[in-house]
Protein backbone atom coordinates (compact mmCIF):
# COMPACT_ATOMS: atom_id res chain seq x y z
CA UNK A 1 0.00 0.00 0.00
CA UNK A 2 2.73 2.45 0.98
CA UNK A 3 4.82 1.32 -1.88
CA UNK A 4 2.02 2.06 -4.34
CA UNK A 5 1.51 5.58 -2.95
CA UNK A 6 5.23 6.17 -2.97
CA UNK A 7 5.48 5.25 -6.62
CA UNK A 8 2.39 7.32 -7.47
CA UNK A 9 3.87 10.42 -5.88
CA UNK A 10 6.75 10.24 -8.29
CA UNK A 11 4.51 10.35 -11.41
CA UNK A 12 3.14 13.87 -11.89
CA UNK A 13 0.28 13.17 -14.34
CA UNK A 14 -0.80 10.02 -12.55
CA UNK A 15 -0.75 11.78 -9.21
CA UNK A 16 -2.84 14.73 -10.50
CA UNK A 17 -5.40 12.28 -11.91
CA UNK A 18 -5.50 10.43 -8.59
CA UNK A 19 -6.09 13.71 -6.70
CA UNK A 20 -8.98 14.53 -9.04
CA UNK A 21 -10.57 11.13 -8.57
CA UNK A 22 -10.36 11.30 -4.78
CA UNK A 23 -11.67 14.85 -4.46
CA UNK A 24 -14.54 14.15 -6.87
CA UNK A 25 -15.78 11.51 -4.40
CA UNK A 26 -16.43 14.33 -1.94
CA UNK A 27 -18.31 16.28 -4.61
CA UNK A 28 -20.37 13.26 -5.55
CA UNK A 29 -21.41 12.63 -1.96
CA UNK A 30 -22.70 16.20 -1.76
CA UNK A 31 -24.49 16.12 -5.11
CA UNK A 32 -25.95 12.61 -4.94
CA UNK A 33 -28.87 13.43 -2.61
CA UNK A 34 -30.16 15.85 -5.28
CA UNK A 35 -30.72 12.89 -7.63
CA UNK A 36 -33.61 11.80 -5.40
CA UNK A 37 -35.02 15.28 -4.80
CA UNK A 38 -38.31 14.48 -6.54
CA UNK A 39 -38.91 11.67 -4.06
CA UNK A 40 -37.78 13.49 -0.91
CA UNK A 41 -39.45 16.90 -1.36
CA UNK A 42 -43.12 16.81 -0.45
CA UNK A 43 -45.90 17.76 -2.82
CA UNK A 44 -47.83 20.96 -2.22
CA UNK A 45 -50.35 21.58 -5.00
CA UNK A 46 -51.79 24.52 -3.05
CA UNK A 47 -48.43 26.32 -2.98
CA UNK A 48 -48.78 30.02 -3.78
CA UNK A 49 -46.13 32.30 -5.24
CA UNK A 50 -44.94 35.56 -3.71
CA UNK A 51 -46.80 38.54 -5.11
CA UNK A 52 -44.60 41.37 -6.44
CA UNK A 53 -45.15 43.34 -3.22
CA UNK A 54 -44.17 40.35 -1.07
CA UNK A 55 -41.16 39.68 -3.27
CA UNK A 56 -40.12 43.33 -2.84
CA UNK A 57 -40.52 42.85 0.91
CA UNK A 58 -38.38 39.75 0.73
CA UNK A 59 -35.67 41.74 -1.04
CA UNK A 60 -35.83 44.33 1.74
CA UNK A 61 -35.56 41.53 4.31
CA UNK A 62 -32.38 40.43 2.57
CA UNK A 63 -31.09 43.99 2.13
CA UNK A 64 -31.52 44.84 5.81
CA UNK A 65 -29.84 41.59 6.85
CA UNK A 66 -32.80 40.29 8.87
CA UNK A 67 -31.57 36.74 8.18
CA UNK A 68 -28.48 37.42 10.28
CA UNK A 69 -30.58 37.31 13.45
CA UNK A 70 -33.76 35.50 12.41
CA UNK A 71 -33.94 31.98 11.03
CA UNK A 72 -36.82 30.75 8.89
CA UNK A 73 -36.65 27.07 9.64
CA UNK A 74 -38.32 25.17 12.42
CA UNK A 75 -36.25 22.06 13.07
CA UNK A 76 -37.59 18.61 13.93
CA UNK A 77 -37.14 19.10 17.65
CA UNK A 78 -39.91 18.94 20.22
CA UNK A 79 -39.25 22.32 21.82
CA UNK A 80 -39.18 24.08 18.44
CA UNK A 81 -42.38 22.43 17.24
CA UNK A 82 -44.13 23.32 20.51
CA UNK A 83 -43.01 26.92 20.34
CA UNK A 84 -43.12 27.77 16.63
CA UNK A 85 -45.54 25.26 15.13
CA UNK A 86 -45.14 22.37 12.66
CA UNK A 87 -41.55 21.80 11.54
CA UNK A 88 -40.58 23.31 8.18
CA UNK A 89 -40.83 21.22 5.04
CA UNK A 90 -38.52 21.52 2.05
CA UNK A 91 -41.45 22.35 -0.22
CA UNK A 92 -42.21 25.49 1.77
CA UNK A 93 -38.96 27.01 0.45
CA UNK A 94 -39.72 25.90 -3.09
CA UNK A 95 -39.95 29.45 -4.42
CA UNK A 96 -37.26 30.93 -2.16
CA UNK A 97 -34.27 32.01 -4.25
CA UNK A 98 -32.08 32.17 -2.28
CA UNK A 99 -33.50 30.33 0.73
CA UNK A 100 -33.40 32.24 4.01
CA UNK A 101 -33.33 29.31 6.47
CA UNK A 102 -30.48 30.86 8.44
CA UNK A 103 -28.65 29.30 11.32
CA UNK A 104 -28.54 32.04 13.90
CA UNK A 105 -31.31 33.10 16.23
CA UNK A 106 -30.65 36.32 18.06
CA UNK A 107 -34.35 36.91 17.54
CA UNK A 108 -37.05 34.26 17.22
CA UNK A 109 -37.63 32.02 14.20
CA UNK A 110 -39.92 33.65 11.65
CA UNK A 111 -40.94 30.66 9.53
CA UNK A 112 -44.56 30.86 10.75
CA UNK A 113 -44.81 34.48 11.86
CA UNK A 114 -47.41 35.31 9.18
CA UNK A 115 -50.74 36.21 10.77
CA UNK A 116 -49.45 35.79 14.31
CA UNK A 117 -49.49 39.53 15.01
CA UNK A 118 -51.42 42.41 13.48
CA UNK A 119 -50.09 44.70 10.74
CA UNK A 120 -50.20 47.62 13.16
CA UNK A 121 -48.02 45.68 15.59
CA UNK A 122 -45.50 44.80 12.89
CA UNK A 123 -45.27 48.45 11.86
CA UNK A 124 -44.92 49.71 15.44
CA UNK A 125 -42.30 47.03 16.12
CA UNK A 126 -40.21 47.85 13.05
CA UNK A 127 -40.38 51.59 13.79
CA UNK A 128 -39.31 51.14 17.41
CA UNK A 129 -39.00 47.58 18.72
CA UNK A 130 -38.70 48.72 22.33
CA UNK A 131 -42.02 50.55 22.20
CA UNK A 132 -43.79 47.19 22.15
CA UNK A 133 -41.18 44.74 23.47
CA UNK A 134 -39.14 46.54 26.17
CA UNK A 135 -36.40 43.87 26.37
CA UNK A 136 -35.84 43.66 22.60
CA UNK A 137 -32.33 44.18 21.19
CA UNK A 138 -33.56 44.58 17.60
CA UNK A 139 -32.53 47.79 15.80
CA UNK A 140 -35.22 50.24 14.68
CA UNK A 141 -35.95 50.40 10.94
CA UNK A 142 -37.62 53.81 10.81
CA UNK A 143 -36.64 54.56 7.23
CA UNK A 144 -38.86 51.75 5.91
CA UNK A 145 -41.91 53.81 6.86
CA UNK A 146 -40.81 56.95 5.05
CA UNK A 147 -39.13 55.46 1.98
CA UNK A 148 -41.33 54.99 -1.06
CA UNK A 149 -41.08 51.49 -2.48
CA UNK A 150 -39.45 51.20 -5.86
CA UNK A 151 -42.00 49.29 -7.90
CA UNK A 152 -41.07 50.12 -11.50
CA UNK A 153 -38.49 47.30 -11.75
CA UNK A 154 -40.53 44.55 -10.11
CA UNK A 155 -41.30 42.95 -13.48
CA UNK A 156 -37.57 42.32 -13.85
CA UNK A 157 -37.41 40.72 -10.40
CA UNK A 158 -40.26 38.42 -11.38
CA UNK A 159 -38.48 37.58 -14.64
CA UNK A 160 -35.34 36.69 -12.70
CA UNK A 161 -37.38 34.42 -10.42
CA UNK A 162 -38.98 32.78 -13.44
CA UNK A 163 -35.54 32.00 -14.87
CA UNK A 164 -34.75 29.99 -11.73
CA UNK A 165 -38.01 28.08 -11.78
CA UNK A 166 -40.82 30.11 -10.19
CA UNK A 167 -43.79 29.77 -12.57
CA UNK A 168 -44.76 33.43 -12.94
CA UNK A 169 -46.91 33.97 -16.01
CA UNK A 170 -46.34 36.65 -18.67
CA UNK A 171 -49.44 38.38 -17.35
CA UNK A 172 -47.99 38.51 -13.84
CA UNK A 173 -44.70 39.89 -15.08
CA UNK A 174 -46.36 42.52 -17.25
CA UNK A 175 -48.53 43.70 -14.34
CA UNK A 176 -45.93 43.40 -11.57
CA UNK A 177 -45.71 47.11 -10.78
CA UNK A 178 -49.47 47.61 -10.92
CA UNK A 179 -50.03 44.59 -8.68
CA UNK A 180 -47.53 45.83 -6.08
CA UNK A 181 -49.42 49.12 -5.99
CA UNK A 182 -52.81 47.43 -5.99
CA UNK A 183 -52.05 45.04 -3.14
CA UNK A 184 -51.27 47.93 -0.77
CA UNK A 185 -54.15 50.10 -2.00
CA UNK A 186 -57.29 48.09 -1.23
CA UNK A 187 -59.72 50.77 -2.40
CA UNK A 188 -57.95 51.41 -5.68
CA UNK A 189 -58.98 49.96 -9.05
CA UNK A 190 -55.83 47.82 -9.32
CA UNK A 191 -56.59 45.74 -6.23
CA UNK A 192 -58.89 43.34 -8.08
CA UNK A 193 -56.16 42.30 -10.51
CA UNK A 194 -53.92 41.10 -7.68
CA UNK A 195 -56.52 38.67 -6.35
CA UNK A 196 -57.34 37.55 -9.88
CA UNK A 197 -53.70 36.70 -10.63
CA UNK A 198 -52.48 35.44 -7.25
CA UNK A 199 -55.57 33.86 -5.71
CA UNK A 200 -58.27 34.67 -3.17
CA UNK A 201 -56.01 34.05 -0.19
CA UNK A 202 -53.80 37.01 -1.14
CA UNK A 203 -53.78 39.74 1.49
CA UNK A 204 -54.91 43.00 -0.09
CA UNK A 205 -54.82 45.83 2.41
CA UNK A 206 -52.79 48.84 3.44
CA UNK A 207 -50.11 47.13 5.47
CA UNK A 208 -48.56 50.29 6.92
CA UNK A 209 -51.90 51.93 7.68
CA UNK A 210 -51.50 54.64 5.04
CA UNK A 211 -53.29 53.69 1.80
CA UNK A 212 -52.19 56.88 0.04
CA UNK A 213 -48.65 55.67 -0.69
CA UNK A 214 -46.74 52.42 -1.10
CA UNK A 215 -43.73 52.37 1.18
CA UNK A 216 -41.03 49.83 1.93
CA UNK A 217 -42.94 49.24 5.18
CA UNK A 218 -45.92 48.01 3.12
CA UNK A 219 -43.66 45.55 1.34
CA UNK A 220 -41.85 44.15 4.37
CA UNK A 221 -45.04 43.76 6.41
CA UNK A 222 -46.76 42.09 3.44
CA UNK A 223 -43.83 39.67 3.28
CA UNK A 224 -43.79 38.99 7.04
CA UNK A 225 -47.53 38.34 7.02
CA UNK A 226 -47.18 35.67 4.32
CA UNK A 227 -44.37 33.71 6.01
CA UNK A 228 -45.59 30.17 6.61
CA UNK A 229 -48.85 30.94 4.82
CA UNK A 230 -47.97 29.99 1.24
CA UNK A 231 -49.09 26.40 1.73
CA UNK A 232 -50.60 24.43 4.57
CA UNK A 233 -48.67 21.27 3.67
CA UNK A 234 -46.89 21.41 7.04
CA UNK A 235 -50.17 21.78 8.92
CA UNK A 236 -51.57 18.68 7.27
CA UNK A 237 -48.43 16.69 8.01
CA UNK A 238 -48.59 17.76 11.66
CA UNK A 239 -52.20 16.71 12.02
CA UNK A 240 -51.34 13.24 10.79
CA UNK A 241 -48.25 12.71 12.92
CA UNK A 242 -49.13 14.24 16.29
CA UNK A 243 -52.60 15.63 16.55
CA UNK A 244 -51.60 17.78 19.50
CA UNK A 245 -49.53 20.92 19.05
CA UNK A 246 -49.72 21.92 22.72
Amino acid at each position, binding site marked *: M*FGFHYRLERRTIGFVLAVMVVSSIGGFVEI*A*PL*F*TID*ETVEDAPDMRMYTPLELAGRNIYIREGCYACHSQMIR*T*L*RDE*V*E*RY*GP*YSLAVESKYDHPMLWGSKRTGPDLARIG*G*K*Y*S*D*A*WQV*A*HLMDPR*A*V*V*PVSVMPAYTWLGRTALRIDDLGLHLTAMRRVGVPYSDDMIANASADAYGQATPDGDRAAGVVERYGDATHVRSFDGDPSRVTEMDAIVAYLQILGQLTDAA*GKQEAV*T*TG*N*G*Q
Partner: protein
Amino acid sequence: MSVGERDPHTGHAMTGHEWNGIKELNTPVPKPVWFFLTATVLFSVVYWVLMPAWPLGVTYTKGLLGIDQRTRVAGDLEKAAMKRATWTGKIEDMDLSTIQADAPLMQIVREAGPALFGDNCAVCHGTDARGGKGYPNLTDTAWLWGGDPETVAETIRVGINASHDETRVSQMPALGRDQILDRNAVLNVVSYVQSLSDSALATGGQADAVAAGKEVFADNCAACHGEDGRGSIDMGAPNLTDGFWIYGGDRQSVFSTVWGGRQGTMPAWESRLTLVDRKILTLYLLDLGSVRQ
Protein backbone atom coordinates in the same frame (compact mmCIF):
# COMPACT_ATOMS: atom_id res chain seq x y z
CA MET B 1 22.86 8.20 -3.04
CA SER B 2 19.85 6.01 -3.71
CA VAL B 3 16.24 5.60 -2.60
CA GLY B 4 17.04 2.47 -0.67
CA GLU B 5 19.57 4.26 1.54
CA ARG B 6 18.90 4.44 5.29
CA ASP B 7 19.78 7.11 7.80
CA PRO B 8 22.41 5.69 10.13
CA HIS B 9 21.11 7.59 13.21
CA THR B 10 17.37 6.89 13.09
CA GLY B 11 17.20 3.92 10.76
CA HIS B 12 14.50 5.69 8.64
CA ALA B 13 14.57 5.46 4.87
CA MET B 14 15.76 8.42 2.81
CA THR B 15 13.80 10.11 0.01
CA GLY B 16 16.84 10.35 -2.19
CA HIS B 17 16.63 14.16 -2.34
CA GLU B 18 19.72 16.14 -1.57
CA TRP B 19 20.29 19.91 -1.40
CA ASN B 20 23.82 21.15 -0.79
CA GLY B 21 24.64 18.04 1.14
CA ILE B 22 21.44 18.09 3.23
CA LYS B 23 19.47 14.90 2.78
CA GLU B 24 15.74 14.38 3.41
CA LEU B 25 14.39 11.63 5.65
CA ASN B 26 11.33 9.69 4.54
CA THR B 27 9.86 9.48 8.07
CA PRO B 28 6.79 7.23 8.26
CA VAL B 29 3.39 8.70 9.27
CA PRO B 30 3.10 8.46 13.09
CA LYS B 31 1.15 5.45 14.42
CA PRO B 32 -1.55 7.50 16.28
CA VAL B 33 -2.48 9.16 12.98
CA TRP B 34 -2.96 5.76 11.35
CA PHE B 35 -4.89 4.61 14.37
CA PHE B 36 -7.40 7.46 14.31
CA LEU B 37 -7.71 7.38 10.52
CA THR B 38 -8.55 3.70 10.64
CA ALA B 39 -10.91 4.16 13.58
CA THR B 40 -12.90 6.92 11.86
CA VAL B 41 -13.13 4.93 8.63
CA LEU B 42 -14.44 1.92 10.56
CA PHE B 43 -16.87 4.16 12.44
CA SER B 44 -18.24 5.54 9.19
CA VAL B 45 -18.81 2.02 7.86
CA VAL B 46 -20.74 1.08 11.00
CA TYR B 47 -22.66 4.36 10.80
CA TRP B 48 -23.66 3.72 7.17
CA VAL B 49 -25.11 0.39 8.22
CA LEU B 50 -27.02 1.71 11.23
CA MET B 51 -28.22 5.13 10.07
CA PRO B 52 -29.88 6.50 6.93
CA ALA B 53 -26.96 7.11 4.57
CA TRP B 54 -26.71 6.39 0.86
CA PRO B 55 -28.98 7.56 -1.93
CA LEU B 56 -30.15 4.70 -4.15
CA GLY B 57 -31.76 6.32 -7.17
CA VAL B 58 -35.35 6.70 -6.02
CA THR B 59 -34.85 5.90 -2.35
CA TYR B 60 -32.02 5.70 0.20
CA THR B 61 -30.58 3.19 2.66
CA LYS B 62 -32.76 3.48 5.75
CA GLY B 63 -30.26 2.01 8.24
CA LEU B 64 -30.77 -0.89 10.65
CA LEU B 65 -31.79 1.36 13.56
CA GLY B 66 -34.66 2.80 11.51
CA ILE B 67 -34.08 6.29 12.89
CA ASP B 68 -36.07 9.05 11.23
CA GLN B 69 -36.14 12.65 12.51
CA ARG B 70 -39.79 13.08 11.75
CA THR B 71 -41.01 9.98 13.54
CA ARG B 72 -38.69 10.84 16.41
CA VAL B 73 -40.09 14.34 16.88
CA ALA B 74 -43.63 12.99 16.57
CA GLY B 75 -42.79 10.48 19.28
CA ASP B 76 -41.29 13.17 21.50
CA LEU B 77 -44.39 15.30 21.11
CA GLU B 78 -46.63 12.37 21.90
CA LYS B 79 -44.61 11.50 25.00
CA ALA B 80 -44.81 15.08 26.21
CA ALA B 81 -48.55 15.15 25.53
CA MET B 82 -48.97 11.90 27.50
CA LYS B 83 -47.15 13.39 30.47
CA ARG B 84 -49.46 16.37 30.42
CA ALA B 85 -52.54 14.28 29.71
CA THR B 86 -53.41 14.03 33.41
CA TRP B 87 -54.33 17.70 33.43
CA THR B 88 -54.81 18.63 29.76
CA GLY B 89 -57.68 16.13 29.60
CA LYS B 90 -59.36 17.74 32.59
CA ILE B 91 -58.90 21.26 31.26
CA GLU B 92 -60.24 20.25 27.87
CA ASP B 93 -63.37 18.63 29.28
CA MET B 94 -64.24 20.86 32.21
CA ASP B 95 -66.15 24.15 32.14
CA LEU B 96 -64.07 27.26 32.57
CA SER B 97 -65.93 28.26 35.71
CA THR B 98 -65.53 24.76 37.17
CA ILE B 99 -61.78 24.90 36.60
CA GLN B 100 -61.65 28.27 38.34
CA ALA B 101 -62.99 26.60 41.47
CA ASP B 102 -60.48 23.73 41.24
CA ALA B 103 -57.34 24.81 43.14
CA PRO B 104 -54.88 22.17 41.84
CA LEU B 105 -55.87 22.86 38.21
CA MET B 106 -55.58 26.60 38.72
CA GLN B 107 -52.09 26.02 40.08
CA ILE B 108 -51.23 24.37 36.75
CA VAL B 109 -52.84 27.27 34.87
CA ARG B 110 -50.65 29.70 36.82
CA GLU B 111 -47.54 27.70 35.88
CA ALA B 112 -48.35 27.14 32.19
CA GLY B 113 -49.98 30.53 31.63
CA PRO B 114 -46.91 32.78 31.68
CA ALA B 115 -45.08 30.68 29.04
CA LEU B 116 -48.07 30.65 26.69
CA PHE B 117 -48.84 34.31 27.29
CA GLY B 118 -45.20 35.33 26.91
CA ASP B 119 -44.85 33.50 23.64
CA ASN B 120 -48.07 34.62 22.00
CA CYS B 121 -49.69 37.61 23.68
CA ALA B 122 -46.97 39.56 25.48
CA VAL B 123 -45.59 41.31 22.41
CA CYS B 124 -48.75 43.42 22.25
CA HIS B 125 -50.29 43.24 25.70
CA GLY B 126 -46.95 43.37 27.54
CA THR B 127 -45.31 40.71 29.70
CA ASP B 128 -47.35 41.96 32.66
CA ALA B 129 -50.57 42.00 30.54
CA ARG B 130 -51.01 45.69 31.30
CA GLY B 131 -51.16 46.58 27.60
CA GLY B 132 -49.88 49.74 25.97
CA LYS B 133 -51.11 52.35 23.56
CA GLY B 134 -53.47 50.55 21.20
CA TYR B 135 -53.35 47.30 23.17
CA PRO B 136 -55.83 46.92 26.02
CA ASN B 137 -54.79 46.31 29.59
CA LEU B 138 -56.02 42.82 30.44
CA THR B 139 -55.72 43.12 34.19
CA ASP B 140 -58.30 45.87 34.75
CA THR B 141 -62.08 45.56 34.95
CA ALA B 142 -62.76 47.09 31.52
CA TRP B 143 -63.50 44.46 28.84
CA LEU B 144 -64.44 45.49 25.32
CA TRP B 145 -66.41 42.34 24.56
CA GLY B 146 -67.23 41.21 28.09
CA GLY B 147 -65.06 39.66 30.79
CA ASP B 148 -66.78 36.41 31.63
CA PRO B 149 -64.68 33.28 30.92
CA GLU B 150 -66.66 32.06 27.90
CA THR B 151 -66.52 35.47 26.22
CA VAL B 152 -62.81 35.93 26.78
CA ALA B 153 -62.16 32.43 25.42
CA GLU B 154 -64.25 33.26 22.34
CA THR B 155 -62.32 36.51 21.75
CA ILE B 156 -59.05 34.57 21.87
CA ARG B 157 -60.47 32.00 19.46
CA VAL B 158 -61.79 34.30 16.74
CA GLY B 159 -59.83 37.53 17.32
CA ILE B 160 -60.99 41.05 16.57
CA ASN B 161 -61.00 42.39 13.01
CA ALA B 162 -58.94 39.30 12.22
CA SER B 163 -58.84 36.95 9.25
CA HIS B 164 -61.01 34.33 11.03
CA ASP B 165 -64.42 33.68 9.42
CA GLU B 166 -66.30 34.34 12.67
CA THR B 167 -64.06 37.13 13.87
CA ARG B 168 -65.44 39.91 16.04
CA VAL B 169 -65.71 43.09 14.00
CA SER B 170 -65.49 46.56 15.45
CA GLN B 171 -64.64 49.68 13.47
CA MET B 172 -64.55 53.20 14.76
CA PRO B 173 -65.07 55.41 11.68
CA ALA B 174 -62.74 58.29 10.85
CA LEU B 175 -65.29 60.98 11.65
CA GLY B 176 -62.94 63.88 10.90
CA ARG B 177 -60.82 62.56 8.05
CA ASP B 178 -63.82 61.19 6.16
CA GLN B 179 -65.61 64.55 6.60
CA ILE B 180 -68.55 63.23 8.58
CA LEU B 181 -67.87 65.93 11.18
CA ASP B 182 -66.14 69.27 10.73
CA ARG B 183 -63.16 70.20 12.84
CA ASN B 184 -65.20 72.20 15.33
CA ALA B 185 -67.66 69.40 15.91
CA VAL B 186 -64.79 66.99 16.50
CA LEU B 187 -63.22 69.32 19.06
CA ASN B 188 -66.57 69.71 20.83
CA VAL B 189 -67.25 65.99 20.96
CA VAL B 190 -63.73 65.41 22.28
CA SER B 191 -64.50 67.78 25.14
CA TYR B 192 -67.75 65.98 25.81
CA VAL B 193 -66.10 62.54 25.76
CA GLN B 194 -63.44 63.74 28.18
CA SER B 195 -66.12 65.20 30.46
CA LEU B 196 -67.72 61.77 30.76
CA SER B 197 -64.87 60.55 32.92
CA ASP B 198 -63.82 63.96 34.26
CA SER B 199 -66.91 65.78 35.48
CA ALA B 200 -64.95 68.94 36.31
CA LEU B 201 -64.79 69.71 32.57
CA ALA B 202 -68.57 70.09 32.26
CA THR B 203 -68.62 73.14 34.49
CA GLY B 204 -65.25 74.75 33.69
CA GLY B 205 -64.17 76.92 30.77
CA GLN B 206 -65.09 74.19 28.29
CA ALA B 207 -68.73 74.03 29.42
CA ASP B 208 -70.00 75.38 26.07
CA ALA B 209 -67.93 72.93 24.07
CA VAL B 210 -69.12 70.07 26.26
CA ALA B 211 -72.75 71.06 25.77
CA ALA B 212 -72.30 71.34 21.99
CA GLY B 213 -70.37 68.09 21.94
CA LYS B 214 -73.19 66.31 23.72
CA GLU B 215 -75.45 66.86 20.71
CA VAL B 216 -72.79 65.75 18.27
CA PHE B 217 -72.30 62.64 20.40
CA ALA B 218 -76.02 61.82 20.46
CA ASP B 219 -76.19 62.07 16.65
CA ASN B 220 -72.97 60.31 15.68
CA CYS B 221 -71.55 58.22 18.52
CA ALA B 222 -74.43 57.01 20.65
CA ALA B 223 -75.39 54.26 18.21
CA CYS B 224 -72.36 52.25 19.30
CA HIS B 225 -71.17 53.86 22.53
CA GLY B 226 -74.72 54.25 23.92
CA GLU B 227 -76.71 57.35 24.94
CA ASP B 228 -74.82 57.49 28.21
CA GLY B 229 -71.41 56.69 26.66
CA ARG B 230 -71.14 53.42 28.55
CA GLY B 231 -70.33 51.51 25.40
CA SER B 232 -71.63 48.16 24.25
CA ILE B 233 -69.99 44.79 24.67
CA ASP B 234 -72.11 43.50 21.77
CA MET B 235 -70.24 45.77 19.38
CA GLY B 236 -66.95 46.01 21.22
CA ALA B 237 -67.57 49.72 21.71
CA PRO B 238 -65.58 50.88 24.71
CA ASN B 239 -67.15 52.43 27.78
CA LEU B 240 -66.10 56.09 27.65
CA THR B 241 -67.04 56.92 31.23
CA ASP B 242 -64.76 54.60 33.18
CA GLY B 243 -61.39 56.35 32.88
CA PHE B 244 -59.75 53.37 31.10
CA TRP B 245 -58.31 54.32 27.70
CA ILE B 246 -56.86 52.09 25.00
CA TYR B 247 -55.40 54.87 22.85
CA GLY B 248 -54.91 57.43 25.64
CA GLY B 249 -57.32 59.82 27.35
CA ASP B 250 -55.47 63.11 26.83
CA ARG B 251 -57.00 65.68 24.49
CA GLN B 252 -54.61 64.99 21.60
CA SER B 253 -55.13 61.20 21.75
CA VAL B 254 -58.92 61.43 21.91
CA PHE B 255 -58.86 63.91 19.04
CA SER B 256 -56.75 61.51 16.93
CA THR B 257 -59.17 58.72 17.69
CA VAL B 258 -62.24 60.70 16.66
CA TRP B 259 -60.53 62.30 13.66
CA GLY B 260 -58.87 59.21 12.16
CA GLY B 261 -60.93 56.36 13.60
CA ARG B 262 -59.59 53.14 15.11
CA GLN B 263 -59.60 49.62 13.75
CA GLY B 264 -57.56 47.69 16.30
CA THR B 265 -56.75 44.13 15.33
CA MET B 266 -56.34 41.13 17.53
CA PRO B 267 -55.29 38.00 15.62
CA ALA B 268 -57.44 34.87 15.84
CA TRP B 269 -55.73 32.03 17.67
CA GLU B 270 -57.90 29.08 16.75
CA SER B 271 -55.52 27.72 14.14
CA ARG B 272 -52.37 28.42 16.16
CA LEU B 273 -53.30 27.36 19.70
CA THR B 274 -55.17 24.26 20.85
CA LEU B 275 -58.39 24.44 22.84
CA VAL B 276 -56.44 23.59 26.00
CA ASP B 277 -53.94 26.39 25.33
CA ARG B 278 -56.72 28.90 24.80
CA LYS B 279 -58.53 27.80 27.95
CA ILE B 280 -55.33 28.13 29.97
CA LEU B 281 -54.78 31.64 28.60
CA THR B 282 -58.35 32.65 29.42
CA LEU B 283 -58.10 31.38 32.97
CA TYR B 284 -54.64 32.85 33.40
CA LEU B 285 -55.85 36.29 32.36
CA LEU B 286 -58.91 36.26 34.55
CA ASP B 287 -56.76 35.06 37.41
CA LEU B 288 -54.28 37.92 36.82
CA GLY B 289 -57.12 40.42 36.95
CA SER B 290 -58.61 39.03 40.14
CA VAL B 291 -55.25 38.83 41.90
CA ARG B 292 -54.43 42.46 41.14
CA GLN B 293 -57.71 43.98 42.25
